[in-house]
């Protein structure tokens, strides 16, 4: 059902956990739909993602896409991170079953959610 890459990220998820000094947190999903992804980001003054962690409640695809997203955006500028599409995440994982494509949406949405919140906070501080 799942590709080897997906199973690898499911079995050995990268960057699991929380960040004490996170300055951006994104969360999507709810227990009703069966998937919740929470991302913790540490973004530095140059808008670079210095560190990232995740916690996920969900299926194999949800865990693997969370893990892959953290790997793909770590060390990237937030503008670049925002261009990450669900298709790119799925591609990096060697594909996902058709019924699981919505899961790859969640991880990138959580990322966008976190960055949006971070920008709002930053603008609020400026004004």
């Amino acid at each position: 059902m799942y590709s080897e890459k997906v199973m690898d990220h499911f079995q050995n998820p990268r960057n699991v956990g929380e960040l004490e000094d996170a300055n951006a947190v994104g969360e999507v999903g709810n227990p009703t739909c069966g998937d919740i992804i929470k991302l913790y980001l540490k973004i530095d003054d140059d808008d670079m993602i210095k560190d990232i962690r995740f916690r996920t409640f969900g299926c194999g695809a949800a865990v693997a896409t969370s893990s892959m997203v953290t790997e793909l955006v770590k060390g990237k500028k937030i503008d670049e991170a925002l261009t990450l599409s669900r298709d790119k995440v799925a591609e990096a994982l060697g594909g996902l079953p058709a019924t699981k494509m919505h899961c790859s949406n969640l991880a990138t949405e959580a990322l966008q959610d976190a960055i949006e919140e971070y920008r709002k906070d930053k603008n609020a501080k400026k004004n």
Partner: protein
Amino acid sequence: MEGLYFDHAATTPVRPEVVEAMQPYFTDFYGNPSSVHAFGQKAARAIEAAREEIARLIGAERPEEIIFTGGGTEADNLAIKGIAMAQKDKGKHIITTTIEHHAVLHACQFLERHLDYDVSYLSVNEDGLIDLQELKSALREDTVLITIMSANNEVGAIQPVREIGEIARKNNIYFHTDAVQTVGQIDVDVVQDKIDLLSLSAHKFNGPKGVGALYLKKGIKIVPQMSGGAQEGRKRSGTENVPAIVGMGEAAKLANANLEKKQAKYSRLRDLLIERIEKEIPDVLLNGPRGDKRLPGNVNITFRYIEGESILLNLDMLNIAASTGSACASGSLDPSHVLLAMGRPHELAHGSIRFSLGYGNSEEDIDKLMKDLPEIIQRLRNMSPLYDG
């Protein structure tokens, strides 16, 4: 295959004796049972012998009350649509439950959509059991069929079949029960329980897949759902799957032997597994009743804070087979309709795992499972945003 198999409610291994009984009907006795020659008559006799075994297993008085089908799904469809079509001038109301297998639920929905039938769906309590009072209140002048499963495939809840049969008989309404999960597991008696139609499926009691049967009490008319060569007393056309029917007969014979002893064995293993999970893993919830109202081999547990498919994948990596009521494993967005009907919130339904025990399982298998399960659950919980342990 290597590994631990705890998915006997999905399907069971075919016993070697069954394979052996089937073998000659592929290669030697391959005649068409409708043919007059000896090749055909040999096959026809084998079908009749199987029919007798199955009648015996469910307490039917006459072998001709058994109609062979292509499985449990087909038996359910034949029973429900067949009665509905035969009774449509008498009334267009059917009573069923919210926790039926989709073979029954979707057959009822078909009748609502295409034949203007009205269907009442009885609720269940938190253990998955119906309320007989609610059944009585649902009865109408135009009720022609009550179809209620004998036991639920997900949570193992055994329904009060005999009481339902009495209510149906007293009110002159046909009673169909999907007994796919009980036949071969617990004693089934269509006469004592006043059952008019009963579905069973061979692959749930160590027979082959793709073969089943409908018990139809003598004298009850149904409209066949398959037009053709008038096999099976005109009720199910199509050349009989002789080897599969022979296998089903052999499986019925084996299931009937020591039924009580096997029931006691799997009930004991079931209770042992439930007890160990409840003792060794925190924050778990048993789905379905305890004790006599639960199918012998059924264990269904919700592990809070985590999702079922990810548990299954972890078990699968260790070659351990089970199943889940989570939506993520089904391809739909909703988790198990059975757990939702029992009032379990979505997140608890998503975290449910069914371990179903059967032929070949032993206490040692439970020891092996429990060596790994607590660690898998903890690992997934550590990853979950819902858990702060």
